């Protein structure tokens, strides 16, 4: 005869064992569900693989026929593969067209898109500096009566209005060209500031503005006692990303002002417009 304790233990143990079995059962359920899922996925992928393999074979046959200069409409084709063949040719042509679209995009095209049934157009301005693609600016232009800029994401400090006033009505392409040039210059100046901050430890960017056309840098001149040199760079021409004036200040020295001029393949700074030039490499 079992003691009460034993009965209770059996009961508890039994309860625990029943719980364990229940849990395992759920796990089993999970397992079998997952197995079903994997099985289904494998079947789908197998079908997809077979379909692509078939398409690839059709394409290869097409290529073979074309390179051997054979007619495309032969018995094998007439047996139903003709449509597949035509589909392959269209797909080849579509691939080329998409490649061309991508090429236009990569070389900085404006990507003009007609919207609202021709009532407006959207253009994109891609920017890049030295091979690195930077921001893309977009603009929607309303064409209903005159050409008007309706929406854009160009920074407010950019003189968009003045460019629009200059060219927008008279010469749309010139407007796009001017904008592209100036936006690229802005992106380039901005990137140069970023690179300066990232790569050159000895130079600190004290001040910069939205248009990045004024840059104040604190450099450390290497001498017996390292001196702080304050450089101010002015970018007078907003369509360019190189400075037009440089001003250098250092404690105990006179402030030096330079104008940056281009001479053949290098830049010179000329002091007071006399030809006493110092070459700086940029």
């Amino acid at each position: 005869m079992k003691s009460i304790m034993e009965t209770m233990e059996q009961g508890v143990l039994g309860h625990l064992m029943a719980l364990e079995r229940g849990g395992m059962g759920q796990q089993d359920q999970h397992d079998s569900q997952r197995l079903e899922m994997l099985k289904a996925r494998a079947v789908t992928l197998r079908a997809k693989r077979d379909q692509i393999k078939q398409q690839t074979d059709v394409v290869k046959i097409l290529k073979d026929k074309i390179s051997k200069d054979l007619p495309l409409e032969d018995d094998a084709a007439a047996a139903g593969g003709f449509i597949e063949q035509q589909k392959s040719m269209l797909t080849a042509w579509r691939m080329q067209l998409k490649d061309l679209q991508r090429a236009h995009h990569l070389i900085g095209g404006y990507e003009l898109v007609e919207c609202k049934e021709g009532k407006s157009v959207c253009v994109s301005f891609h920017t890049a500096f030295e091979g690195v693609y930077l921001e893309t600016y977009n603009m929607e232009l309303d064409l209903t009566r005159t050409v008007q800029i309706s929406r854009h994401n160009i920074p407010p400090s950019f003189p968009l209005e003045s460019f629009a006033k200059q060219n927008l009505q008279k010469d749309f392409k010139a407007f796009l060209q001017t904008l592209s040039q100036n936006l690229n210059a802005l992106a380039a100046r901005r990137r140069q500031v970023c690179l300066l901050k990232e790569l050159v430890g000895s130079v600190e960017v004290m001040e910069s503005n939205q248009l990045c056309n004024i840059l104040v840098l604190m450099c450390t001149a290497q001498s017996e006692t390292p001196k702080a040199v304050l450089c101010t760079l002015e970018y007078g021409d907003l369509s360019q990303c190189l400075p037009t004036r440089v001003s250098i200040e250092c404690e105990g020295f006179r402030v030096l002002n330079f104008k940056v001029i281009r001479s053949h393949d290098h830049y010179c700074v000329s002091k007071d417009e006399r030809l006493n030039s110092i070459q700086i490499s940029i």
Partner: protein
Amino acid sequence: MEQKYEEEIQMLQQEIEMLEAEQEETLRSIFIEHGDRLQHELKSVFEGRGGAQKPTLSKLITEVRELEKDLRRQTEINGIALNECFVKTLHKSERKLVQQLRLAGHCSVLLFQVEFAVTEIQEGDALLRRVTELNIVVDGVEFKDFSAFVSRVEDTKDLLLFFRTLRTFSERCEERRQTFQHFQEKYPDVVSLPEGCRSELMIIRSPQLPGISMTIFWKIDVSMEGVVKPSLELLLKMPDQAREFDTKKVMENGSNYFQSLLQILGVEASIEGLIRTVCL
């Protein structure tokens, strides 16, 4: 059991990726090697031969037509026509794409061939794209002084700067060509373009005044930063005997006078003025 399926799934996915890449390459190669034949065959496809077209075909045809229309639009607005576009995918994964492209085309009458490699890396939301190689070949008599710019652009991999500059440069070249041609047609006895209407040289000579010539050099300079600057210069030639009569020192000061004239009247009117002086 599960593991077996998981392995199979992974294998199938890889196989699918490989087949898709193979199909893409084969499709591209058909176009590269047999573009003409393909175009020819496609004509009949578009004309709807073979009775009623299956719905899948007509959907593709519509898509292709749309793409063609869009490309015409892009060509027009960009001012750049691409005649050749060969793409080679060197690496394609979920986050990274490396491609080599070879493009050939023209911007108005200026021909170019550009080969470049581009790498795209998806980092979170941002797509980082970078040109890693760039080779440019330009062809045309206008490109005499273009090589410094091209070398610089190849070094800095500034693909976008090249095309921006090419557009502007081609516009200035076109202005020059049209102006030169206009004057040659209007004054055929007096104006000659010894190197063609696409060159930078125009000579004004009157048959009644042998030995006296005015040569206009219309240079279009392109700086390394892609700044396009046209500049005109005048060179006067006079026989030695005539120089004795040159009391007003026209020979010495002629080119400066011409610069002033340009500033006041602009290019066309200034050239017209010069031509008129020898049309007796």
